[in-house]
């Protein structure tokens, strides 16, 4: 039984086929990169896995269970959390409250217990936002918003996290810290990671497997070093070789 199994998934928007029959599997405990040119269907694929959009065809199985038709909140409770490419923090709420929403989603309404306060503090400390605990999310800068989304996602105690471009817009120092954080998510929480990223150099340092999407199809997959040297991948990114 595969951990995450995506089978021949199709998603159309009117005449546009955003995802055209993608099939892959992910093993538990891995950090897997998902790359591809703009418009390849990466974020759409995330939305299909997370249940934000319904699939037109195909099935998605998670830990042996069919989650193809599941609603987002249900997918989350099954153990898949996500961050958003364009960050979506709860702006009017503090960082503390943002994380609490994730805890409520997982545990239901338990009230503001000491155990919960401890968990929130721990998560905010883990991503480095402890100093901003009582700051409204609207006042955070981009990297802090991204970190908040990670803390919030981890609060739902996921088995799999979908990260959508966490490094975009960060400077070199911030990227290095983010990479440590992503490794720590897996090593400390035992969470499997599927990660969309355009910052290739950084991505290559962390991922153990790479999936390449192009025009809604899976172009190739496998060992990161081999994949980036694959002629098909180079062609997809740079156009056909002209010799």
């Amino acid at each position, binding site marked *: 039984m595969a951990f995450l199994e995506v089978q021949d998934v199709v998603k159309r928007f009117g005449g546009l086929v955003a995802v055209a029959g993608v099939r892959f599997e992910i093993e538990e405990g891995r950090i897997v990169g998902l790359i591809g040119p703009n418009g390849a269907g990466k974020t759409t694929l995330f939305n299909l896995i*997370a249940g*934000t959009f319904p699939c037109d065809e195909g099935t998605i199985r998670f830990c042996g269970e069919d989650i193809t038709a599941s*609603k*987002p*909140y249900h997918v*989350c*409770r099954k153990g898949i*959390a*996500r961050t*958003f490419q364009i960050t*979506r*923090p*709860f*702006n*009017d*709420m503090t960082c503390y*409250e943002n994380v*609490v*929403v*994730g805890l*409520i*989603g*997982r545990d*239901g*309404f*338990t*009230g*503001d217990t000491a155990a919960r306060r401890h968990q929130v503090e721990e998560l905010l400390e883990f991503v480095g936002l402890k100093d901003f605990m009582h700051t409204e999310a609207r006042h955070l800068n981009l990297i802090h918003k991204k970190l908040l989304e990670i803390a*919030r*996602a981890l*609060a*739902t105690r996921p088995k799999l996290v979908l990260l959508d471009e966490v490094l975009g817009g960060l400077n070199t120092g911030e990227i290095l810290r983010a990479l440590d954080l992503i490794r720590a998510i897996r090593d400390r929480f035992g969470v499997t990671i599927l990660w969309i990223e355009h910052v290739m150099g950084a991505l290559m340092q962390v991922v153990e497997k790479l999936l390449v999407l192009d025009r809604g199809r899976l172009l190739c997959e496998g060992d990161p070093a081999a994949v980036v040297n694959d002629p098909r991948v180079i062609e997809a990114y740079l156009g056909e070789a002209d010799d």
Partner: protein
Amino acid sequence: MPRRWIPAFPLLLVVGLCAFPFLAGEYWLHTGILCLFYIMMASSWNLLAGYTGQVSFAHAAFAGVGAYVSGLAAIHFHLPPLLGALLGMAVAALLGLLLGVLCIRMGGIYLSLTTLAFSEMLRIIIDNEYEFTRGTMGLSVPFILPVYSKTAAYFLMGVATLAVLFAIRAIVRSDLGTAFRAVQNDETAAASLGIHVVKVRLAAFVISGTMAGLAGALYGHYHQLITPEILSLNLMFFVLAMTVIGGMGTFVGPIVGAVFLEFLSEYIRIYGQFHVLLFGLIALVVCRFAPQGLMGLWQRRMRAVSS
């Protein structure tokens, strides 16, 4: 103003509110009671619109349902008004659930329009129905208490208002309140964190509808006459203006707005038709210079003082 005075405020407020019926004349006591009704209405509408972002126009309709159910139960089954109010609340809650289920998956303007249509339909039915609800003539119902006393009615409404406000405060501070605000801020993000958005929005609908039902029932029995006026859009927009002018999404805002607008409308009544005009101008000025409402103005001032 020194900060150490602030704790004395609630005490003064309680003393003032308790002394009010003995100091005020009949007319202002009546205005005070109306204020309490509007505080309940505006605060409970704020729970729905200000905390979950569902701008429903059916709030006055829920109050009307509470009033008519309670009134009819008193007439036909001789149910004491206070028990009738409970029945009115229950029916309003049920209706809130049904209307909620109907339009909960619609967002924004569609929800507003559906609730508006529902509210108008209900009003037109009651307007034109004579046998049962006595149409525009209105329904004569017994007073809220066994003995007629405006002062007693004031205290009863006061207790009900306090109960509603405490309930709202408790809900806003609870996990449900956190879920409300998460859903209002970003439904997609809330759902991605395991929040059942539909259930949360439905809960807001039912809770606020129940509170409006209570307010309406008490209001009807206080007036001893229930007319379709209670579920008119006039009343709905009055409640909306109170909440927005006071400060939507804040606890104190709707209270301040309700008291401010109710007293204001009494003061400018002498201008006859012009009082509507004045009303519009005031709303306009507040929207222009205090878009966050009077509470927003106050908070800005407090920040300026403290920094």
